[in-house]
């Protein structure tokens, strides 16, 4: 139990003393997770929208697959991506293994199903009456689609936040693809795994607190922005 109180103490000492190693891991985490979430949203929102808004054969199968993939273990994504970007794999020549770009690709595949499924749900939930009203007002199919997306914007933001949470907290991809290389690919989560492996549980807890603080700040910023937009 004393790990917890030690952890809180260590968290403050680490942050206040400005330990370069820790700040490097924090910065790396922010950098790679920001990049990953932007990629994920750029691909996931359009895909999710198509899946929720349009009817096409195989739609339900796609939805079921996307829903299932939300539960894919991060280590499995790490292994699959490793198989492709290892030097002995098909994309080995790109030299992506043990780089942050490689990690971002893995995290993209982790976040994508979350964004796709939740965006699809949001779009589906738009009320038919709204759609009918818009149609009678002479909205073009394009305008109709745009307004549906706009209607579901809060749900899409929630999807983004959920995906971001999954991305920033994962350790499987970062460890397998990034390799936890000091000053290069060490993120907060891989650093926690390392400290725990070393038996320095308090440092692990401290880094966990740092990660939660980041999540808290991001969530807080989003909800403030949302309130502003609503008022």
């Amino acid at each position, binding site marked *: 139990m004393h790990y917890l109180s030690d952890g809180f103490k260590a968290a403050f000492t680490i942050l206040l003393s400005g330990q370069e190693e820790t700040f490097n891991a924090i910065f790396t985490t922010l*950098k790679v997770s*920001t*990049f990953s979430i*932007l990629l994920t949203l750029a691909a996931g929102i359009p895909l999710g929208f198509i899946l929720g808004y349009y009817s096409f054969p195989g739609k339900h199968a796609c939805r079921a697959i996307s829903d299932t993939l939300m539960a894919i273990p991060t280590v499995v994504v790490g292994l699959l991506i490793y198989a492709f970007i*290892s*030097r*002995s*794999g098909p994309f*080995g020549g790109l*030299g992506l*293994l*043990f*780089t*942050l*770009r490689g990690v971002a690709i893995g995290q993209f595949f982790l976040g994508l199903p979350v964004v796709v499924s939740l965006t699809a749900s949001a779009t589906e939930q738009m009320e038919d009456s709204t759609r009918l009203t818009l149609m009678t007002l002479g909205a073009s199919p394009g305008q109709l689609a745009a307004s549906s997306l706009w209607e579901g914007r809060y749900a899409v933001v929630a999807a983004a936040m959920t995906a971001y949470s999954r991305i920033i907290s994962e350790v499987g991809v970062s460890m397998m693809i990034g*390799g*936890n*290389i*000091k000053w*290069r690919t060490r993120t907060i989560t891989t650093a926690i795994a*390392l400290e725990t*492996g*070393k*038996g320095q549980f308090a440092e692990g807890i401290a880094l966990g607190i740092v990660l939660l603080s980041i999540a808290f700040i991001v969530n807080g910023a989003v909800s403030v922005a949302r309130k502003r937009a609503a008022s």
Partner: protein
Amino acid sequence: MKRSLRILFFSVLVLSIAAYSAFSAEVLRMATTTSTDNTGLLDYLAPEFLKDTGIELQWVSVGTGKALELGKNLDVDVLLVHAPEVEKQYVQDGFGVNRRQVMYNDFIIIGPPSDPAKIKGKTVKEAFISIATKGAPFASRGDKSGTHVLELDLWERFGYGQPEKENWYIQTGQGMLDTINIAAEKVGYTLTDRGTFIKYEDNYKGNPPLVILVEGDEALFNQYSVIAVNPVRGDHLRYDLALKFSDWMRSDKVQKMIGEFSLLGKPLFVPNAK
């Protein structure tokens, strides 16, 4: 408004891509075992290597099994591992070249101070046989790490094979420290490298639930070697840097540094380059 947002979005995208491709010094990639990383040995050696040669050493620390696999898949240039029998086979199979011994540390058998299997001060052989016949709980790494490979080799040598399904034999599939903790919870024995144990002992402020019972037997010496990944297998491999690292590790200066490296005041590695 929409336009400026779009511009902002793409500039962030481009900037992040640019930020990733910024560094490109001479980099040697190494796969090594958790023991060299967790003890801080590499943090101690790498800056010196950079100073002496201008090469940046980047390492991933994994189990020996995975380290060898990364070499086989050509994802690293050099290996620093400790499983001599497996390594020899690895070199014979053409995956690695220039295997050179650099140092050793030793393993110990730890267990509860009450010592139910009465192994204290015995040889490894006697200890293993006593644990097996008395059925005392024994935690095994079960993860193909160097430690696990040695343990299996010992069971084999003493005529037991692997006690795979025995009730007292616990395969954790986890790291050394986790395995020690599991052994402690089960009031049982385990085989560990000394470095991890020193850390474990320190976590309990010198009063750990498990203590050293068997040590100093030659069967417990743990030889580390540097192996270059066979350059014939991939054009991108930095064989030149791998050899520089191998030579550097075996130089008098670095051998002395390795001998002087200590963890919590206790020396860990014995240099023995040939």
